[in-house]
């Protein structure tokens, strides 16, 4: 509960801080301090030291899993603000508003990590999405940014409509919003529980709308345009923390509901996973702009995260937390470098290793992590996903397909490394401060540390 309340309050505080604090960089400091406060509030909650109690009438269910995800999301946002705060300040005039919106997004994220009913799911998704529509259009004078914002808004509302439809159908069938409300466990006699048509149709609609939110194929079409059009600094936020939150909601929603769809559920999901991996990876190969490549790569990574849904066991839940952390850290790192580049194409990175060795090194570690090379956090993220499916049993072919696509992903991630290290060129960047370099180096070290001792993160969460 702490995270939800504190983040909403901080959002309001940020809005008014614009009146009191005029300097842009001071607002970044206020935001970072706010995030630190939020992080502490959430940690206090998860360790059970100090919790705000409000009777939510079973609409929320606070458990470790959700609170740990909050910790990851808030920490990632903090790192993001520290690394890319300058870029947020440079996006436009209303810096305090951007930070306020980010806090509201975090409020939505913390609702999604603890909801216990379809109504709260809907509220969480909306609280998370609406600030994003605005952030996407933050670069007001840029036509592409406006287009992306409108597109995102229309497509987002459309999918929310589908979600509401699904919720309505389920409500109609069961009479309540609770998760798994009407589900009776299969009796010992072997009779499968019967579900009404309304419930099944409702679940499928919910599935479609969630696929849309996490940009799983074939509902991914908005992703590349929105990610490409939005100011890079906000793309970084959308592609990491928000996307991971979508997955947490997805998993929480379906872990109690899968039996409604019966055995066809796995076939449906396997189809979505393969389509997502295929489209994300293959299209990323053909991109010329690193930003657009990262948009498709985020689709491809979503394909991997869907494995957590597919296997639905304890390993998958641990894994999705690690995956969120690994993926968010690496992507935030790459985007923070990308924002500094003057040219977003692959050729724009040519010779970066010579001009900015620290940046090139950190970007390489982030890319290796995204590709899932051992000794980086990304390896264990992928490891947990694959292991959870192998543990669930019976789908080894799907794992083999997945690793083949992982090999494809190496192709486009390594193109950036090739440009930076092996090609001659004059990569130009905007001004790089010493603090930024230090922060980026620390991020790279953190990624390697998680890659050697993943238990460090996981034990921290499962104290």
């Amino acid at each position: 509960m702490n995270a939800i309340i504190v983040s909403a309050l901080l959002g309001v505080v940020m809005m008014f801080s614009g009146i009191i604090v005029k300097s842009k960089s001071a607002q970044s400091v206020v935001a970072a301090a706010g995030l630190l406060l939020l992080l502490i509030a959430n940690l206090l909650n998860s360790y059970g030291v100090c919790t705000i109690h409000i009777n939510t009438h079973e609409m929320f269910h606070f458990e470790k899993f959700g609170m740990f995800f909050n910790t990851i999301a808030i920490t990632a946002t903090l790192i993001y603000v520290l690394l890319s705060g300058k870029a947020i300040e440079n996006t436009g005039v209303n810096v305090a508003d951007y930070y306020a919106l980010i806090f509201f997004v975090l409020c939505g994220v913390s609702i999604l990590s603890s909801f216990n009913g379809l109504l709260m799911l809907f509220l969480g998704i909306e609280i998370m999405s609406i600030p994003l529509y605005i952030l996407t259009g933050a670069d007001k004078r840029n036509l592409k940014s406006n287009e992306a914002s409108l597109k995102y808004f229309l497509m987002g509302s459309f999918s929310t409509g589908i979600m509401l439809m699904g919720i309505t159908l389920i409500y109609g069938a069961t009479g309540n919003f609770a998760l798994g409300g009407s589900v009776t466990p299969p009796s010992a006699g072997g009779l499968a529980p019967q579900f009404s048509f309304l419930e099944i149709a409702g679940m499928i609609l919910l599935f479609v709308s969630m696929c849309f939110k996490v940009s799983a194929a074939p509902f991914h079409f908005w992703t590349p345009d929105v990610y490409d059009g939005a100011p890079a600094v906000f793309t970084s936020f959308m592609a990491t923390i928000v996307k991971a939150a979508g997955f947490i909601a997805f998993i929480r929603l379906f872990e109690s509901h899968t039996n409604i769809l019966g055995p066809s559920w796995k076939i449906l999901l396997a189809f979505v996973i393969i389509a997502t991996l295929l489209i994300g990876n293959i299209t990323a190969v053909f991109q010329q702009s690193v930003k657009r490549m990262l948009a498709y790569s985020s689709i491809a990574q979503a394909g991997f995260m869907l494995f957590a849904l597919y296997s639905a066991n304890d390993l998958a839940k641990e894994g999705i937390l690690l995956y969120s952390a690994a993926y968010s850290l690496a992507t935030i790192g790459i985007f923070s470098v990308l924002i500094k580049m003057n040219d977003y194409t692959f050729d724009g990175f040519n010779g970066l290793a010579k001009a900015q060795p620290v940046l090139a090194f950190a970007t390489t570690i982030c890319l290796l992590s995204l590709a899932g090379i051992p000794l980086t956090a990304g390896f264990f993220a992928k490891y947990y996903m694959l292991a959870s499916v192998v543990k669930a049993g019976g789908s080894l072919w799907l794992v083999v397909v997945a690793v083949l696509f992982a090999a494809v992903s190496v192709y486009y991630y390594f193109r950036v490394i090739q440009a930076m290290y092996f090609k001659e060129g004059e990569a130009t960047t905007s001004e790089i401060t010493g603090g930024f370099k230090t922060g980026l180096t620390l991020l790279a070290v953190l990624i390697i540390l998680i890659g050697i001792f993943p238990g460090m993160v996981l034990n921290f969460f499962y104290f």
Partner: protein
Amino acid sequence: MVPVLLILIPLLTGLVTFFLKEAKAAKGFALLSSVITLAVALAGIFFLDAKELAFDAAWLPDLGSRFTLMTDGMGKMLCLLTTVSFPIIFAATYNNEYKNSGSFYGLMLLTQAGLLGVFLAADALLFYFFWELALIPVYFLCSIWGGEKRIAVTFKFFIYTFIGSLLMLVGILFLYFHTADHSFAIQSFYKISLDGKQEAFIFWLFFIAFAIKMPIFPFHTWQPDAYEQSPTATTMIMSGIMVKMGIFAVIRWLLPLFPHASVQFADLIIILSIIGMLYGSLIAIRQDDIKRLIAYSSIAHIGLMCAAIFTHNKIGMEGVMIQMFNHGVNVIGLWIVADVIEQKLGTRKFSELGGLAQKAPVMAILLVVMALANIALPLTNAFIGEFLMFNGLFQYNMWMAAAAGISVILAAVYTLNMVQKVLYGNTVATTENATEISGNIQLMLIVLVIVVIVLGVYPQPMIDLTKDTVTAILVKR
């Protein structure tokens, strides 16, 4: 503690080397580090017993993976090969200049750490880690310091091996969930018994990874280009030591884990290996480039080793053990000559070489000995290994041995052809002003030639060293 030192010394010194700006300092430091590693390895192999050569520490308790290292005969032999090769490579290429030499030598030492880790790991996940750790530095070495087409060629090499390792990872995960105690330890893996269909499927997941690394026909297409385009010091590591990772892994992991499947598919694999041998040899005859010739000849030699492993008999296996070491020594010798010719004369093409024997008699003698060892002439080390392997293959199937035997004749054709074109005949424009090779290279080649002849006359120490592995493998079946 010794095995940990073997990994830690190159790892830490490698990281330090990155920050050495002076080319001289980096070279000297790398050479010093590799000599220290060699000294530790020699001390460990000859003076310590098995207990002191094992190491075990907690690493990932939640996953059931421990940092466990062990050394058996084969591990010792390959550690010896690795630790001997690096000082020789560093000394023989001491005169070469690399831009950013600190990074070059740093990456070389990291590769050594990865290789030693692969040969020592007794935990499947740890093995996988080192398997990749050995690959990444090599990728950067080849891509930064390689020839003209380096980026595309090395990328192909990387993607090939990466696909292989990922398939292996799936296999490792599958086996992990079949261990009784949910552990990655090699001993727990050895206890698994799978049903026939599963065993066959997982066998191939592992075998493709190892076949790409070796490489076995038809997974070899990355190899000649990668060898040609890499800086020669790296090529020496790749063909001298890295390919042994594949053979080593087949013996350490594949045969004991999949006893039935490895018999079931033995015929197929031996036939593929023999095709590779003949194919490699025939193409080698048509080459006009020293590096490409050695690359294709390497495919032929590795093919024979792979075939001999799958004969599942003692004599063939002993041959493989000896030949793993010998091939490493011989091929590194050939690469050193290839490198010195390229550095001095600026070409590797036979058509632009000739008459070097008049200009550099010492090099000529040493190259001839190396070439004869490549043909496996009696009194050279390779003869013993190849003889044993052919013997094993003959016991397995006479016709296969006969087909494989053709490659010996072909080896003589292409190797002697190379010797003739490079050393004899009249001097041409490029070789007109050639001079004798420098002292450090002479010394290193002489060391290698002594090893070639000593092991050719008296191979028993090598057989004794690896006896325990051979016995253990054959008992498991």
